[in-house]
């Protein structure tokens, strides 16, 4: 069993360090409904430090130009900043620069892979793309805990190609059934797509074991790193996945920027998804040839300010230390489960006390709908997520229609978790939970 992280671990963020870094986040100092904001919805989107906000503004004030187009000074400057940002993000996740493709968000990154494989299946990409072509009866394996972003694109790809979708089930504690994974991943499996960390359960999936199963049958691996890249040290080269996706806005960066990671050998063999300007070498009236990765996947005018701001966010995370953030969040996660378990009528979804989880917890309150819980907490200026968190099949599997999720980040304090737990206890009384 994974060990309970020691609360006194020297690596965790101290409360004075957290107080100091909170000063960098302007929004954490505003009031909501007359009280200081307690923001426990970082799993949906994180707040931004002033440095990230300023970098984006300064770019527009001093350097704004289209990248990879034109020869003037600003264009060159913007292009340099844009490519430097790629290098910064690549380093942060253990990748090479040419393995990082900018997208709008993780959803677009996952769709890019699914659509490019669909294009290969339709015959695009020549002999190099042969390895991506799907045939009727091929299988795409995902898990029961996927976010809709890592499920629906595969459903669509299956529908277009005749491939069949299979699901690795979860056990009662929210961990993946690895015995079932070993049974489901067979020579028919062509793609294994799974989340690193569940945005609902908070479990951390065994990436290496899953990749080994996929490798043994020659299947491609696609990792949804949306809930890991912001919260855990991530080394994509070491994890040996083929593709990975994450979103900038969940890791202190702005909206409008996401990342697709792909092993360069694969990205250079994959036909493009979006086509148009900036991704070609030669275009005639009838056809076009494409640039190598990553530019082959970056059609049209790029998200320059967002990429630069995401690199600034990564610098901020680096400066604090992602390993220390992970340690802090492991403590928050345990604090949440322990506290939630003490409130009558509340059931935590996923790993129990002492089992590994990131700094979030989702839960069901017997007889009370999550919207009502969320409304009550909002009245106390506590922001949580309610609903199905884009995981309807997982909620159905767990036998609940919706849940409430509290998710923390580097700026979340133990006091905030206590405020939340106290308010939740009051909410259960207000709505008359009789447990």
């Amino acid at each position: 069993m994974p060990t309970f992280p020691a609360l006194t671990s020297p690596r965790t963020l101290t409360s004075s360090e957290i107080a100091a870094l909170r000063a960098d986040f302007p929004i954490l100092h505003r009031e909501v409904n007359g009280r200081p904001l307690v923001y426990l919805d970082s799993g949906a989107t994180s707040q931004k430090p002033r440095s990230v906000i300023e970098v984006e503004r300064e770019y527009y004030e001093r350097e704004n130009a289209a990248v990879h187009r034109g020869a003037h000074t600003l264009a060159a400057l913007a292009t340099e900043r844009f490519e430097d940002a790629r290098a910064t993000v690549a380093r942060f996740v253990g990748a090479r620069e040419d393995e990082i493709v900018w997208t709008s968000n993780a959803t677009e990154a996952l769709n890019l892979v699914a659509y490019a494989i669909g294009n290969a299946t339709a015959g695009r990409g020549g002999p190099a793309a042969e390895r991506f072509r799907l045939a009727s009866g091929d299988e795409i394996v995902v898990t029961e805990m996927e976010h809709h972003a890592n499920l629906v694109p595969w459903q669509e790809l299956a529908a277009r190609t005749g491939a069949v979708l299979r699901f690795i089930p979860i056990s009662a504690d929210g961990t993946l059934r690895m015995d079932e994974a070993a049974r489901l991943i067979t020579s028919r499996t062509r793609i294994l797509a799974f989340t690193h960390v569940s945005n609902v359960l908070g479990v951390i999936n065994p990436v290496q074991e899953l990749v080994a199963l996929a490798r043994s049958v020659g299947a491609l691996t696609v990792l949804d790193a949306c809930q890991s890249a912001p919260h855990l040290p991530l080394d994509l080269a070491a994890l040996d996945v083929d593709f990975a996706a994450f979103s900038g806005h969940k890791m202190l960066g702005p909206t409008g920027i996401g990342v697709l990671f792909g092993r360069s050998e694969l990205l250079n063999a994959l036909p493009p998804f979006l086509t148009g300007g900036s991704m070609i070498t030669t275009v005639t009236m009838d056809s076009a040839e494409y640039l190598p990765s990553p530019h082959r996947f970056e059609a049209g005018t790029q998200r320059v300010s967002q990429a630069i701001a995401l690199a600034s966010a990564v610098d901020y995370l680096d400066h604090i230390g992602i390993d220390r953030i992970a340690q802090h969040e492991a403590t928050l996660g345990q604090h949440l489960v322990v506290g939630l378990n003490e409130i009558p009528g509340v059931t935590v979804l996923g790993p129990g006390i002492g089992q590994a989880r990131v700094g979030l917890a989702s839960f069901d309150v017997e007889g009370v709908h999550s919207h009502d819980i969320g409304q009550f907490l909002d009245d106390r200026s506590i922001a949580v997520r309610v609903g199905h968190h884009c995981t309807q099949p997982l909620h159905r599997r767990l036998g609940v229609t919706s849940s409430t999720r509290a998710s923390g980040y580097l700026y979340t304090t133990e006091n905030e978790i206590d405020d939340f737990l106290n308010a939740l206890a009051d909410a259960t009384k207000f709505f008359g939970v009789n447990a």
Partner: protein
Amino acid sequence: MESLYQEVILDLSRRPHGRGLEDHAAAESHQINPTCGDEITLQLHLEPGTDRIRAIRWEGHGCAISQASASLFSDLAPGLTPADLAARIELFRVAMRSRGTIEPDEELLGDAVALGGVSRYAARVKCAMLAWVAGEQAIILAAAA
């Protein structure tokens, strides 16, 4: 908080009115709120041989607001003509969308005025409207049948 969750709303969410479907409905409508997964199946029953509503019956799950709202809707409907109910649904919608500027009319909406506070919470208006939208569709379906 108390203006949103009035006592009658909390009571109805625990002890709903009109819950449970029956045979021989004049029309039935199923509605989903995709943001939270709340669902309702709502039936319109007419008094045999008349154009008056005998009952609204419903089944579903959702938050306290949506559950209480379905109960209040089923309390309001009996004895009205479908056209009259449709007019009141429209009145209710206008009040709900008013961002707290229009108080619902007690004479026409009865106890459903307890939901007046919802209109100040834009994110919850859909919860309050769910049963009423189902009712509106059931009226259209019944007229077409």
